[in-house]
């Protein structure tokens, strides 16, 4: 590009070459710069195929949406009595809700449970792109925040302050009112954890980037993944539910063994 802009000036100064030369050089320059641009743009397209907004995927997404979602969310995402408007929810919300199987909803209930995912990855992506194409909203997070290699100690602290009151300090989940609940966080992909914080699905509040920066979110994901992947040093964790599980285990297994042994000790030998 640089060269192409300089060369024509040189031509004008010296005037030693034929007029055709300048024309051909311009043509060559345009070709080079255009090719380079095409190369660059196509390489970025390769980098995140999942987030490509091509007309084809949007159209596929629209078809999928009309077939599977429009009954409740409306043909133009305007919502209905059975489902909220999806204008401006962004691709992150769609990826979370559909990608974890929560949507399509299996029944009107206090909360949508996790269930087997109903669509392929491409279809989920198409749906997300379609919804995002109607109105802008939070988009699917970038990979650099999902590597779970941040600061676990900081993440755990942020988790205790922001998340533990519903999800339990060990991420084991907890009860909310009227049959709603905060699910356990084990086995959730980093992308979905990030999207949940970003979009606040179901009864969860939104933790936007001003509230928890992408770096904070990365640390929280790190802490959760550390806890999930580290071996339980103290032996079987008993569901990581705390003293209730421990007490239940003691009364059933511990006292059971002890009572069986007292019976054995006092049994009369025949």
């Amino acid at each position: 590009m640089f060269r192409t802009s300089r060369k024509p000036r040189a031509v004008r100064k010296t005037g030693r070459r034929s007029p055709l030369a300048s024309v051909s050089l311009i043509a060559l320059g345009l070709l080079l710069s255009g090719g380079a641009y095409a190369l660059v743009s196509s390489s970025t397209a390769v980098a995140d195929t999942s987030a490509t907004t091509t007309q084809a995927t949007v159209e596929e997404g629209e078809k999928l949406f009309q077939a599977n979602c429009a009954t409740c969310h409306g043909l133009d995402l305007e919502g209905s009595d059975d489902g909220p408007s999806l204008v401006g929810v962004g691709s992150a919300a769609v990826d979370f809700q559909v990608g974890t199987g929560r949507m399509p909803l299996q029944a009107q209930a206090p909360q949508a449970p996790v269930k087997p995912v109903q669509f392929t990855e491409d279809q989920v992506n198409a749906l997300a792109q379609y919804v995002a194409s109607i109105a802008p909203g939070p988009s699917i997070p970038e990979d650099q925040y999902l590597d779970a290699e941040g600061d676990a100690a900081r993440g755990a602290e942020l988790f205790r302050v922001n998340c533990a009151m519903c999800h339990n300090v060990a991420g084991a989940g907890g009860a909310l009112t009227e049959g709603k609940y905060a699910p356990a966080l084990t086995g959730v992909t980093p992308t979905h954890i990030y999207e949940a914080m970003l979009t606040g699905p179901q009864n969860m509040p939104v933790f936007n980037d001003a509230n928890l920066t992408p770096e904070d979110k990365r640390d929280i994901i790190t802490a959760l993944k550390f806890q999930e992947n580290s071996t339980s040093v103290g032996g079987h964790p008993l569901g990581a539910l705390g003293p209730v599980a421990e007490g239940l285990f003691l009364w059933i297994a511990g006292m059971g063994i002890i009572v069986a042994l007292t019976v054995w000790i006092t049994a009369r030998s025949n």
Partner: protein
Amino acid sequence: MSTSTATRPETAVEKKSGGFTAAASNYLDERTSISAVVKEFGRKVFPDHWSFLLGEVALYSFVVILLSGTFLTFFFQASMAEVHYDGSYVPLKGVEMSAAMASTLDISFDIRGGLLMRQIHHWAALLFVASIGLHMMRIFFTGAFRKPRELNWVIGFVLFILAMAEGFTGYSLPDDLLSGNGLRIIDGMIKGIPLVGTWISFLLFGGEFPGTAIVGRLYTLHILLLPALVLLFIALHLVFVVVHKHTQFSGPGKTQQNVVGYPVLPVYAAKAGGFFFIVFGVIVLLASFFTINPIWNYGPYDPSPVSAGTQPDWYIGFADGALRLVPPHLEFVLFERTWSFNILIPLGALGLFIVLAMIYPFIEAWVTGDKREHHILDRPRNAATRTAIGAAGLTFYAGLWAAASSDIIATHFKLTMEGVIHALQFVVIAGPFIAYFITKRICLALQKKDREIVLHGYESGRIIRLPGGEYIEKHEQIDDYQRWKLVSYHDYKPLMIRPNARGKITVGQRARASLSRWFFEDRIAPPTRGEIEASHHHEDHVEIESSHQNH
């Protein structure tokens, strides 16, 4: 048992001495007069029944707690000084926490055997309180608390409360998020007491919660005062066991005057000694394979985060449950003071429950007017009203206990939290009455069945056709040993209202008589000797086949 005589050394040929053992025993006895003690204790007889070992389990787990606790004191720092954790647990590295939390993490991750010791200590503590609970149930349902053992019931009950206090103070020491939440609840309960609450709270915490003093203070209580009290009461408890001698279930040859069983030396000492190691082993196995109180998951205490699913250890659960079950909006301001009845009602109900359970032996003694000594245990069915009261009390306790995990019940059984709470409120209030009536009816039905078996024998399953074509089932008589168990129990009758020396019937008398009627109105009289003989005579008459096999 008599191995000492078998290995007699050759040196003791000329003198008829017992060898080294005898010489050593003699040496000791001449200086300590211990033979009298050995004679007394060695011949002490313990009856054999599995439920008689539950108190021993509590004693042994306490010994395990003392041993493992001593190890922990070597490394634990009871200080709330702020430090930055720098141990080997990565997710807490550099996090600000108290020295107590940091040293507990060090015990868990950096001191060899530390985590095992912590887990042994905690599992043993849970087992300690649980075995006390089971032991108390045994005592209650068999009527072992009756004269002369009423005071020992009270001593045991104090031990139960001390054990809970030990547990709670220990639970709070690591200064982790979970125990800190628990302390905050206790602080709230204390502050809910009118007039004095705030003062007591500030005295306890050395200022506003959480302050910097509470861990040190709880530590002193946990390792100094409370263990000393527990030991003192255990000693008292055991002295009384020796003084009163052990109770026994009724059976042939067992009377109010004797104890039938094995002597301490050598049988019971060996059994009990071995059993200590068995209990120790079970605790170590639990501690090796199952995590308890993973404080590294909870993180250091900070008053702002409160975790979902926060619960206390099981023995404090009933108190936590009471707080969860009390309906909202019971707080109001009167005389410029806040009256937190949502705290005071649970406190009062629990206090009443504990006091009633503690003085139950005296209540029952007063109602029955029974001044005799009882060394033979009741079968629970033969004391129907007491068993029913016990079942009611347990239902009340269990409802409160379950309420401490109301949120976990809700999430794991996919129920609404409100539904769980309302169901448990019903269990706590109506449940005891339902349990009372069902248990009483079951007891009476079982007594009826016993009476039927004694009088008419049990169904043998042998069908006989009489010459006239009639079919009857042959009933077999139970043997005398079994019959003894079924018929030898006291038959209480409701007290008669009698005027006292001055010819008056007092209000107390009336109350007592009506309570006594409540206790004993519904009863199945045990079959009398006459009835048994008559029924057997009758059986002989009906007997068709001459199948008099004596069995």
